[in-house]
């Protein structure tokens, strides 16, 4: 059974039908990349999964349990951690507080403050700094760390490399690779094709609101029509 199963998902902004019957699956363990040009509907798909768009329909299941129709906080508690394109650092909270608000008092198993500080030592150094004072790279580390602290089963990242310097992108990539080897399941939306395909086992390609291709990462380059037509490569 897949960890996340999306079937016939639709989402609208007012009357514009932005996500049109999207279906795909994210298996347990590993990284699934959701790729596509700007405006393809990737972000809206993620928001619809999280219950953050007002008008949506279709089925979303997490480990077989339906989560469509649940309010956002209930989707999160079911085991989904979502890091939006805008990152979503709370600027009036310190780094430590940004992390603390996400902790739900899980048992000894799972993520702790020490463990995320171990993964991102930079955050430990800046733990008392205001969220609004962080650099782009520090912000991205903070929101990934915060997502991990919810002990989610599925991590959803929307363009984590956007606007970051190459060295920081490498750092984030190394961290996501580590998390992958530890068995974390990730759904990664990216514009950075090389970054995404280096991490992902599977790729879902979206174009104009629909899924245009789905399969193993190695098979993607066999399909020039998809590469050119829907990814512009």
């Amino acid at each position, binding site marked *: 059974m897949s960890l996340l199963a999306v079937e016939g998902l639709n989402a609208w902004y007012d009357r514009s039908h932005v996500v049109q019957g999207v279906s795909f699956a994210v298996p347990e363990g590993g990284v699934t990349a959701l790729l596509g040009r700007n405006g393809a509907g990737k972000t809206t798909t993620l928001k619809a999964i999280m219950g953050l768009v007002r008008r949506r329909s279709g089925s979303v299941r997490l480990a077989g349990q339906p989560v469509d129709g649940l309010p*956002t*906080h209930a989707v999160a508690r079911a085991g989904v951690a979502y890091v939006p394109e805008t990152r979503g650092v*709370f600027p*009036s909270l310190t780094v430590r507080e940004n992390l603390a*608000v996400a902790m739900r008092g899980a048992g000894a198993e799972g993520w702790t403050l020490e463990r995320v500080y171990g993964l991102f030592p930079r955050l430990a150094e800046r733990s008392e700094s205001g969220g609004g004072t962080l650099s782009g790279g520090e912000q991205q580390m903070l929101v990934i760390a915060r997502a991990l602290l919810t002990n989610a089963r599925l991590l959803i990242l929307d363009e984590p490399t956007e606007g970051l310097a190459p060295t920081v992108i490498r750092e984030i990539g190394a961290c996501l690779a580590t998390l992958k080897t530890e068995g974390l399941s990730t759904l990664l939306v990216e514009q950075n094709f090389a970054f995404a395909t280096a991490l992902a086992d599977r790729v879902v390609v979206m174009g104009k609101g629909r899924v245009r291709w789905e399969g193993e990462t190695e098979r993607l380059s066999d399909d020039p029509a998809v590469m050119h037509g829907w990814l512009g490569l």
Partner: protein
Amino acid sequence: MALTDPAFVAIQVLNAFQLASLLFLLSVGLSVVFGLMNFINLAHGTLYMVGAYVGYAVAQASGSFWLALVLAPVAVALLGAILHWLLLARLQAANPMKQVLATFGLIFMGLDAVRWVWGSQSHGLEAPAGLDGSVTLLGQTYPVYRLFVIAVGAAVAVGLYLVLERTRLGARVRAGVDDRDMAAALGIDIGRLFFGVFCLGCGLAGLAGVVAAPVLSVYPGMNMSVLVLALIVVVVGGPGSLSGAVIGSLLIALVQTFGQVFAPALASVAIYAAMAIVLLVRPGGLIPLKGRS
């Protein structure tokens, strides 16, 4: 009587602090609720009035001001919970105009309700034994009760500060004010948080009412002038923050108090002028919301 007389100035500053204390108790709930939900409760002043009346009634029945001081905020917080269930939970998704109209309607229902129960005349509430005397400050006598009003506001401000800044629950409230959707995506139930903050804010409005009763009298319509001042405090301080409510309350109370002393005819104009100047210099208020543009 002028600014050159330090004792006179000190007394006026104390009067301003007393008004600031009441404005703070009223505006902090309005402000944080607005920051969290973009929701404007125009009936907030009505809850203040209800707090004063319930305090008056409890004190009449029991003979104890202290019992009134405890029960009135609790009663008003419960009333807030009922309002939330009946009305506000449904209005959150509605447009702001509907919120304004519905809570505006509550103002008139509140006025009629207190007139019906307690009549149109004004009532007085005695300061309790121990707080009903005066002290001499810089050669002037000053009512002890007014110092008590200042102390209540300061104690509530410190208590709220500790909860908001030093607990995880407080950090969650601030996170919700910064970015409601992001807080929800981390599993924080914003609806429940809002309900709690709303009821607490209502309780503090009730506390303001019962604390104000021995200073100002209790009458139908006592909420109106104070609602306008509290709204100005929220705008001037910047919605959603405790420090904004504290600073806004102090500023507006000082302008109001010294305006009344030096140019009574211009006092209310001075308040609007202060608001205009603040908004010209800092459109988001003195402490603008960090999460929003």
